[in-house]
């Protein structure tokens, strides 16, 4: 196992796209960590709210003062920088929570099997039957706007994926010899799950989590884009893009001059999601070469 892991890590870092993913993520981490230096907030204000910088609702192109321009009266650069923190917060918290729930439910279903398994799997069917975005929309409308509400909605509708993965892994591992051996020695079920099954499933779960991170952040941003997620003025890439929408519909011939409204927050989003996808792909290649695509 140890040797395998080391080999896999070597494969990961000899994979160009994996390295690119890690580097991109590293840049985002730096931006998030140094946000107060890159875009100093006004003292005494919640730094996660983008300060209003102009009186006119018209967007302003990039300038010395506002390097990414101004949208919805707010500085895009400030929003992109602090939005990085928002993206990480949503992505990491939702992934952790949904993975924890998924691990629990999946372990129950996979290990105890039979009726419990059938019931839990039908429940995941139901949760997966409504499209992720639509389901999250419904729940946020009920819970109200706010980042915490968005995160709750995302968790409620994303625990099924790790649950299914874990269940599948357990069913597979269950048949294997060492579990049978442990069982015949009278080791308890909980111990078997903790000692044997979960360590074996850890890499698939990690890979899946990294792949899911992208779609979670996209969905959260989509909610903000629709005006259902982050509150007015919150530093969030989706919310910034929401400002751009009406200007893009405003008749043709003139919209290209508003390119900065899409390019900066949109570019940040694409790179962020791309980084996670590249990392996820590379992880999968490294740990499970059979699935290489």
């Amino acid at each position: 196992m140890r040797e395998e892991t080391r080999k896999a890590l070597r494969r990961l870092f000899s994979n160009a796209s994996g390295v690119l993913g890690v580097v991109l993520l590293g840049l985002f981490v730096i931006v998030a960590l140094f946000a107060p230096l890159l875009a100093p907030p006004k003292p005494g204000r919640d730094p996660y709210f983008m300060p209003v910088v102009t009186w006119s609702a018209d967007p302003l192109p990039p300038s010395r003062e506002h390097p990414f321009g101004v949208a919805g009266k707010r500085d895009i650069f400030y929003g992109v920088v602090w939005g990085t923190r928002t993206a990480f917060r949503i992505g990491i918290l939702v992934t952790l929570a949904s993975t924890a729930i998924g691990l629990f439910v999946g372990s129950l279903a996979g290990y105890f099997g039979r009726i419990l398994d059938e019931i839990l799997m039908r429940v995941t069917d139901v949760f997966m039957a409504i499209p992720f975005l639509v389901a999250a929309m419904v729940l946020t409308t009920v819970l109200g706007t706010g980042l915490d509400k968005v995160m709750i909605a995302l968790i409620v509708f994303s625990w099924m994926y790790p649950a299914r993965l874990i269940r599948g892994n357990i069913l597979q591992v269950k048949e294997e010899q060492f579990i049978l051996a442990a069982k015949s020695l009278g080791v308890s079920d909980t111990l078997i799950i903790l000692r044997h099954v979960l360590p074996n499933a850890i890499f698939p779960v990690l890979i899946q989590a990294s792949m899911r991170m992208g779609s979670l952040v996209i969905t959260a941003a989509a909610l903000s884009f629709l005006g259902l997620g982050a509150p007015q003025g919150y530093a969030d890439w989706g919310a910034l893009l929401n400002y751009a929408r009406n200007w893009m519909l405003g008749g043709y011939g003139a919209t290209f001059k508003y390119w900065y409204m899409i390019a900066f927050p949109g570019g940040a989003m694409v790179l962020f999601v791309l980084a996670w996808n590249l990392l996820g792909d590379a992880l999968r290649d490294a740990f499970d070469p059979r699935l290489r695509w």
Partner: protein
Amino acid sequence: MLEPHGDCGPHGAWFALMIFYILRRLLFLPLTLFGISLLIFLMIGFLGPYQRLATFINSPERLKGADVDKLVELYGLNDPLIIQYGRWLKNVLRGNLGWSYVGKEPVLSAILKRFPYTLELTLFAAIPIIFLGTSLGVLAALNHNKPLDHGLRIFAVVGWSFPDFVFGLFVLMIFYGTLGWFPPGNLSVWAEEIVKSPHFRNFTGMLTLDALLNGRFDVFLDALRHLAGPVLTLTYVEFAFLLRITRSSMLEVLRKEYVRTARAKGLDERVVIHKHAKRNALIPVATVSGQTVIGLLAGTVIVETIFNRTGLGSFIALASQQLDYASIMGGSLFFGLILVIGNLCVDLSYALIDPRVRLE
């Protein structure tokens, strides 16, 4: 799940297994739908009784001058949730989904009116997605680890990472704002007038099809022009997944012994690929294609909103923005229904494509 077997013994056993499988799926269908309705109801159940009143009233006249407290009492909105759920379900089964403020009509008719637009968009997007996804996937596999393969992978993973609203905004900016090619909306004003006129007959509710059936080629072209932007967006954002699946399926099949057998017969490499390998590789791809098309329905929420189109997706987005709970409930229920039935059809049709599972 239905898994193709290598050796599966006599025919009768297979047949029985298939029947069993179909029955099982059909049995779980109402159960899943029931679960979806319960889930949606419970979510809305977080709201207070006054907000939920809207989901029961079928026309605004009935609210006029009425005492709201009395109505809450009348509909039993203070009763235990289970009882309320039963009542709501009965209403839903009768086709009464409440009054839609967003649509200014009963929710059910608002949905049924908008669904064809969304279906039309989905079907139009499905064509390039499936075509590009599979053919580029095969191409990538045939050039395994060559520059073309790497190029396609990069192109795909970037598309895969593009949120649909970001790409959609770019498309809007470039193809509408700058070039003026693909305008937003469903139709131009002149075409809309034609469609609304009494001479124009609505057969399917899908604009392109109806235009052709009415012999209005100009309206057809106009509808296509309006579809182009959303279709382009959905295509780039969604084709990547199919490309991946096709590529890895094809790579796997190319390693199979029967491909070697085909070569050993003396067949030309083209025949080996297109007749022997592709046919096998596309079997799993067919299922994924089906799932992708069904998944597109959800993608319409964003795309229809960005391109200002009328449809089920923009309807639900608008309803959410305006807290029109009756529409939200009805819309999400309808989405769930379509998804579940669609997935069932995809799974069952899988049985028809793969001869190992074929029913005589």
